[in-house]
């Protein structure tokens, strides 16, 4: 469950550039939201806020039912982050590691047994069509392969919340559709999802409520109770 109450965010204290202003919305556990809006509206910023890469400057925020504020201990945020999967717009893979080792990171950080990790890697990479590229260095991958690796890394640990920033922009149409089907399935199984996109065809294919951002403000919340 996600709930934001009058959340604002500035990039830095010195610059008075407010990126997100007075956001209030909530998403139930297992809910799916498209995150829409023109370029520069603040979609990526909102996702980084939900990924706890930064904290709200003002307002109250609940993530996976847990409070998020500067008063919390750092270990609290670590535990929360381990339950979130994020697909960054620029993938954020570690170039010196292989595809398999990049994808294994969330499980290794949670100290899962290594044989279990190997099984999970095999399964998930086969699913995203990278079963043959297991040992390829991340730096040698094409854009689409990088994006699929990033997706695999975001879901391998079965997080309760998945955030995705334009997760299909480097994918072929068939791959994008497969991904969408999986997102729908994960959401049905109780995973909360927030997916930012520009792709109109995708939105038409998976009809779910959207959050519309414009210049850092929430202009429409289709998931809000009428």
């Amino acid at each position: 469950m996600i709930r934001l109450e009058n959340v604002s965010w500035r990039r830095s204290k010195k610059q008075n550039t407010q990126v997100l202003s007075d956001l209030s919305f909530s998403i139930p556990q297992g809910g799916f939201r498209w995150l829409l809006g023109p370029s520069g509206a603040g979609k990526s910023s909102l996702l980084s806020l939900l990924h706890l890469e930064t904290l709200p400057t003002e307002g109250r925020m609940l993530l996976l039912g847990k409070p998020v504020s500067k008063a919390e201990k750092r270990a609290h945020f670590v535990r929360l982050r381990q339950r979130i999967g994020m697909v960054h717009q620029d993938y954020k893979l570690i170039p010196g590691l292989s595809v398999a080792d990049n994808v294994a990171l969330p499980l290794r950080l949670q100290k899962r047994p290594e044989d279990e990790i190997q099984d999970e890697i095999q399964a998930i990479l086969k699913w995203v069509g990278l079963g043959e590229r297991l040992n390829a260095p991340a730096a040698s991958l094409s854009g689409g392969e990088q994006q699929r690796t990033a997706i695999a890394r975001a879901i391998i640990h079965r997080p309760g919340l998945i955030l995705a920033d334009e997760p299909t922009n480097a994918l072929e149409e068939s791959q994008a559709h497969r991904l969408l089907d999986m997102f729908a399935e994960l959401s049905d199984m109780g995973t909360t999802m927030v997916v930012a996109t520009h792709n109109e065809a995708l939105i038409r294919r998976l009809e779910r409520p959207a959050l519309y951002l414009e210049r850092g403000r929430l202009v429409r919340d289709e998931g809000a109770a009428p």
Partner: protein
Amino acid sequence: MMPFSGRKDGLSVSEALPDRSLFTLVAMMSFLAALTLAGATGARALSARWAGGAAQLVTVQVPDPDQPLKPTSNKKDPTGPSRAETVLADLNTLPPGTVVHRLDKEELARLLEPWLGEADNSALPLPAIIRIRLPDRTQVPNDLEQTLTAHVPGTIVEHNASWGERLKALANSLLACAGLALLTVGGIATLVTGLATRAGLSTRRDIIEILHGLGASDGYIAGRFAWRTAMLGLGGSLAGTVLAMVPLLVLFRMAAPFANISFQSDTLLLPDWKTLQNVIPTDMLVAFAALPFAAAFICWITTQSMVRLWLRRLP
């Protein structure tokens, strides 16, 4: 199944330059620290020796020893004890166990030989030299010189303890200098480790942010960096300490005759381990063994604190 060797998280990419320079710098500082430790051990031994024996030694000089104590008009018929005998009698009042020894003619001649040569010096008016060794844990009475000069004018009491005190003070200030030098070396090690850590943080900044985002704790990330610098510190310090043994062994060989230790084989440049054990003081060996671990600890704690502090910029 692929064996899980090391932690594949992108932080073990260790070929960056700052890492290797840390090894070399720590090696050089450990070299310095080892030499300083050797000096400190020497100074401490000196200090202990002077604190131990010297306070118990007193030398008394009696000029005109054979003159009677009270000059009479008739020199051919001296009455009463001589000046030297009077002093010796007075010294009987020292604590029991005191060894009082008046140097005889031959001993005196040997003492003076370097200055006067082997000629017959019986014509010279030599003073009597009396050596006193007090038993352990006793002190020369403060008023000894006063008593003796009042009784036998011209008597000189040379208290070796005052020399001992001065040498002990010298040894102690040497020790203090060594301590300061070690502190400085430790400070530089901290600084150098800090710089290497900062360089490591800035080249791996993206990786750290990714790992942090994936739920790596501060302890995990700091631990990865700290173990790396600690291992470099351990290795570098080990190398530096072993290197420092070379000049020290040469020094110890030169000092060995004084230390009453002889090498079995003079042709060997480096003595074998058994001989080495006898040559190098045990406390110094312990200090040398501890040095790499101290260096590793300095590296570890510095990196831990720096990385944890750096991570504070991320929520």
